[in-house]
């Protein structure tokens, strides 16, 4: 069993957990993810490994639908039914990049964290643009402050930093600073717009994709994405990819395939 050792509410939608999972932690590297099944009937949901200490893993999840809400009902001392990993390829480090701009949207700040931290550890200069719906939705800011040179903020309602999208902030930075690489992680639509913007400024973009997954080992093919006309399995080939050739429209359609069922189960089982 995988015991919950710590739980922290980051905001009303996002929570952090530290879970004992030595077999996941053992070989985990930045960029890897894991799959959780909350109880023995549960769905398999993928979450990024935000940090490890060799025994425990830190996960940060947004209460989006049924399974993440179920997860959030677990408390310190409870156990999760299944935790498996580390999955996916570790972050591909681009050695030639000297100055990097991280762009985080919402809970995307969680998967971005281990990657940016790794670049900082390797002596690169990293800046961050972090965006969310309101001030409350900007997560992990204190932890980012430990290694980011500059942090810029954007909120939808203007309650903190620039009122508007992360892309607006990034564009203003591109006019002042020279970046070799941008790593953008957030909702698909945000990542798509980041690539469009970065192309304009001739900056390379890496993204982390979050298609629907089941096994996470390359067995089912649910997680496939089309990149430059080729099919990739995000769980084993990714989840990080250079963003330029990704068919985001197709990926959005694939991600939304079960929207109706997801709404239905939430209504049925959570609103009681």
């Amino acid at each position, binding site marked *: 069993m995988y015991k919950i050792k710590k739980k922290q509410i980051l905001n009303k939608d996002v929570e952090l957990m530290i879970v004992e999972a030595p*077999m*996941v932690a*053992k*070989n985990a590297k930045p960029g890897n993810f894991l799959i959780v*099944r909350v109880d023995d*009937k*549960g*769905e*398999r949901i993928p979450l990024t490994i935000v940090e490890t200490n060799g025994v425990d893993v830190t996960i940060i999840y947004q209460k989006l639908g*049924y*399974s993440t809400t179920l997860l959030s009902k677990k408390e310190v001392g409870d156990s999760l*039914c*299944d*935790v*498996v*990993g*580390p*999955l996916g390829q570790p972050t591909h480090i681009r050695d030639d990049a000297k100055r990097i701009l991280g762009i985080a949207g919402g809970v995307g700040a969680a998967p971005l964290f281990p990657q940016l931290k790794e670049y900082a550890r390797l002596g690169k200069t990293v800046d961050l643009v972090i965006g969310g719906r309101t001030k409350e939705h900007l997560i992990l800011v204190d932890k980012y402050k430990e290694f980011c040179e500059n942090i810029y903020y954007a909120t939808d309602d203007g309650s903190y930093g620039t009122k508007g999208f992360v892309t607006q902030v990034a564009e203003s930075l591109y006019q002042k600073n020279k970046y070799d690489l941008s790593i953008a992680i957030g909702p698909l639509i945000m990542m798509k717009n980041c690539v469009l913007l970065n192309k304009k400024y001739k900056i390379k973009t890496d993204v982390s994709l979050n298609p629907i997954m*089941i*096994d996470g*080992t*390359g*067995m*089912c*093919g*649910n997680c*496939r*994405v*089309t990149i430059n006309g080729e*099919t990739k399995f995000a769980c*084993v080939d990714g989840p990080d990819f250079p963003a330029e050739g990704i*068919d985001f*429209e*197709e990926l959005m*359609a*694939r991600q939304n*395939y*079960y929207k109706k*069922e*997801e709404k*239905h*189960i939430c209504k*049925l*089982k959570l609103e009681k």
Partner: protein
Amino acid sequence: MKIDRVKMPVQEPNIRNCNFNEVALGLDLQLAKIEASRCLDCKNPRCVKECPVNIDIPAFIKSIKEENIEEAYFTIYKSNILPSICGRVCPQEKQCEGACILGIKSEPVSIGALERFVGDYAITNNLKIEECIIENNIKVAIVGSGPAGIACAVSLRRLGYTVDIYEALHEFGGVLQYGIPEFRLPKSIVSTEINKAKTMGVNFFKNIIIGKSITINQLLNEYNYKSIFLGNGAGLPKSLGLKGENLTGIYFANEFLTRVNLMKANQFPEAPTPVRIGQNVAIVGGGNVAMDAARTAKRLGAKNVFVLYRRDMNALPARLEEVHHAIEEEIDFRLLLNPVEFIGENYQVKQVKCEIMELGEKDASGRRRPMPTNKFKTFDIDSCVISIGQSPNPIIKKATPNLEVDNRGRVIVNDYQTSIPGVFAGGDVVTGAATVILAMGAGKDAAIQMDKYIQTNKD
């Protein structure tokens, strides 16, 4: 007096195609005895030679005749620890029953049905075999809990080894668990049969992906396993490589069947994993996987389920019984058709375009080769399940560069030993997608080689 081959009672087709309960209901003692009485107890039984694990078939059938089912069970158990499973899923017509002497003039003995009867009797009556295991305290690791891994584990355990099985998924059994549907192989049977290995003292660890959670090197050097068996199967789905294959509504059989069998999506929203199939479903392929996908789609409520296969009916590689059952369940076989393109709208599949094929000369498989005609047909569909085969998953290979594989990703072995000394392999990971009983046979035989290896390399 000539007795006809006993017919296995089944659920009515128009009832069973709406539920997931087992289709074939099994023989009762009376029917089993009648069927057993057909066996000639041959001196030189042809059937035994064609069973990949060489069960003493005439002996166990004789015990059924004598109403000594326990004895029958012990006879089978010596060669096969999963009789309830093999009795259900072996392609008997190509193996034991295909060779039965009675088959020459009339119909072969229903060996599979009898084996299942005995296996199920043992489960219902909780028959246990006390085996005396003398511990040798030598650790061996098994990768994968499919039939190959389980058979290997049990054989090694009997020799006294400390056996640890590592499984990537959250349930044990491999394809028996996530691939073959409930209506053909109830999962309660799979768990009960696997529990026998647990009772013998085999240790099972779930949620551990060898090559990720622990590497082969770590198993050998940190965990001090003296030998490792790779029974990780052929889990990588083959793609058609066609335009439009990533549209929504197009599944690989692995995803579709895993959603239903492992994640119980047929019970959504009781189980939280959904599956959506629509009214018109195309299944591409003609093997067991395709039959399972087609019949599962029907049970999920699809109106029209049709199998697109590029050869003719005689060439279908699926078990005969499954093809018959599929026909009874109104699965439509559209033959000599080869998909060439998926056509969608807003990223949702709407149509599949197929080339009409005709049969040419015989190919290497002995079947007539399907030839393109440059004529096409298009069908409206809501979804499509691609079931054209699997190859081994490359995770272990990628993490273990010195493990040699062939150009199709299959692990290369010599007497079950891989290119890494002490690391053995068997089952689908070596042969490519094959059968349950072949995988079990390989696991068993590999265990003998592993024992030899360990005994000769003792310090």
